[in-house]
Each structure stands twice: as C-alpha cells, then as structure tokens.
C-alpha cells in the first residue's frame, strides 16, 4: 500500500473508532447518569470527536514521506485532486441539505441553539475527511497493487 492509502485507511479507522466511542460514552451518560439523549450525545461526542480530529489531521505526520524516494507521480496527483473535489462537494452538499432541512422542518421564524452550528461544522468536516479517504481507496482499488 502506498502512503496515501495508508493515510486513508487510518482516517477511516479513526472515524469508525470515534463513532463507536461516542455511542458507548453517550449510552453510559444515558443509563448511568440519567441524562436525556440530546445532552448525553453532546457530552459523549466531545472527546472522541476532538481526539479524532487531532488524529485525522496529524495523519500525514504519522505516515511520513520516505527520504530520497519518489512516492508520488501524476496518477497519484490526479487521484488526490479527484478525492479533494469529491470531498469538498460532499461536505458542501451535507451542509446545504442539513441547513435547509432544519430550516424547513422547524420553521424559519424559530430559534436554534448555537451549539447546533458547531455540530454542523464538525459533521461537515468529518464527512469531508471520510469522503476523501473513501475516494482515495476506491480509486486505488482498496488493496495493495505492488505499491
């Protein structure tokens, strides 16, 4: 597997682990501490999401380029650009759909807590990373090819 694929797998694994950890912590808050689901979900997602974002953004540092070795050609650049384009498109689509859905279902004259904005921004960021990782893996063929 090349460096891009390793980073993509790592980012997907971090997202999956953060999702599982968030669900588990939220459950603990609901059943042990008796919090309502909305609050428990908010508290449960804070640390896994923060840790996940730190790990995902530091992935290029964890998988460093090998010195004195060419590991990136034009095909990799094309795949990288494709992945960036798709991830940006998907994250904007997510933002647009969520914003319109909340606006139309709750009514445009209502009020919404500010933490929802932060949730939407974080959700969009996670979707961007996931879409990029998935596109890279799909373009390369998910498995090692004498890389």
């Amino acid at each position, binding site marked *: 597997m090349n460096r891009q694929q390793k980073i993509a797998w790592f980012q997907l694994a971090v997202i999956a682990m953060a999702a599982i950890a968030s669900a588990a912590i939220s459950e603990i808050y609901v059943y042990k501490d008796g919090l309502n689901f909305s609050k428990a979900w908010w508290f449960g997602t804070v640390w896994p999401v923060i840790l996940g974002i730190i790990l995902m953004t530091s992935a290029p540092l964890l998988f460093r380029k090998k010195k004195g070795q060419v590991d990136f050609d034009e095909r990799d650049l094309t795949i990288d*650009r494709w992945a*960036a*384009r798709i991830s*940006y498109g998907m*994250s*904007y689509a997510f*933002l*647009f759909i*969520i*914003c*319109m859905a*909340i*606006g139309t279902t*709750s*009514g*445009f*004259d*209502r*009020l*919404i*807590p*500010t*933490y929802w*904005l*932060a949730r*939407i*921004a974080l959700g*969009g*960021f996670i979707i*961007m990373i996931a879409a990029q990782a998935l596109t890279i893996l799909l373009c390369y063929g998910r498995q090692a090819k004498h890389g």
Partner: protein
Amino acid sequence: MNTAGKERTMNRFQKIAWFNLAVITATILITSTAIAIEIRMRGYSTIGPCFVVILALLKATPFLFKKPQGQSGVVCDERDHFIRNRAASFAYTAFWYVLFLFCFLLWFIIGPENSVPTIALPLTAFGGALFIKTVASVAILVQYGWRDKGEKL
C-alpha cells in the same frame, strides 16, 4: 512591450470570473439598497430580497461565454485546468476555515446555550456558495494576472 498586431484579449475563464464578480457585487448592492429603501419607507422588507434572482445569471455563463467553434477552437490547456483546480480547491478550503471560525466564534461569543434564528442556517449555506464563487473567481484572476496577457483565442 510590443503588442502591435496582436489580438489582446482575456481568455474564457477570466471573462467568466469577471462576470461572476460583477453579478455577485451587483446583486449585493441592488438587494441591500432595495431592502434599505423598503425598510425606510414601510418598516419591513418583502420585495427587496427578491432581487437575489439576479444571481440566476451565474448559471448562464455556459451560454454567455461559449467555447469557440472551429479549427482554432482549443480554449483550455493543462495550465488552465491547473489554475481552475487550484482556484476551486483554495475557495473550498477558505470556505471551511471561515465556516469553522463563524460557527465557533458565535458559539463562544453568544454562548452554547443561547440561540440564533433558524434563518441563519439557510443563509449560511447560501452565503457559503456565494463566498466560494467569489473566492474562486478572485483566485482565477489572481493566477492569470487580472488582465490579458496577449493570449490569442
């Protein structure tokens, strides 16, 4: 610089970028002026926001700036693709930075338990699209150098 005998013209992407900037600026100016006048006269605004339909012109660029037909019809090379990709990438990255700043600053300034009107959400998505278009257009113009460079179409 001797440009005698050369046809000095902007390429298609520069024209589209200038057109996008002009439409967005005109829409912002006309809409805000109409809203301001209406609020001053009636105390509320209903007709003013309708002027955002001017933005529909942004979707007309493929018809307004058609690719030249014929033998010398090549209008896009690798450099143009590179410039467009870089502009789009820069615009989206800038948008996400601004969105993050906006959401978290609002969260810190107003407080997590306080509220904002729901209309802020669709306006964020809509404003975001305009922001991306504006930044991408500016990035294209900056990369090409704002003005024509004696390129022939």
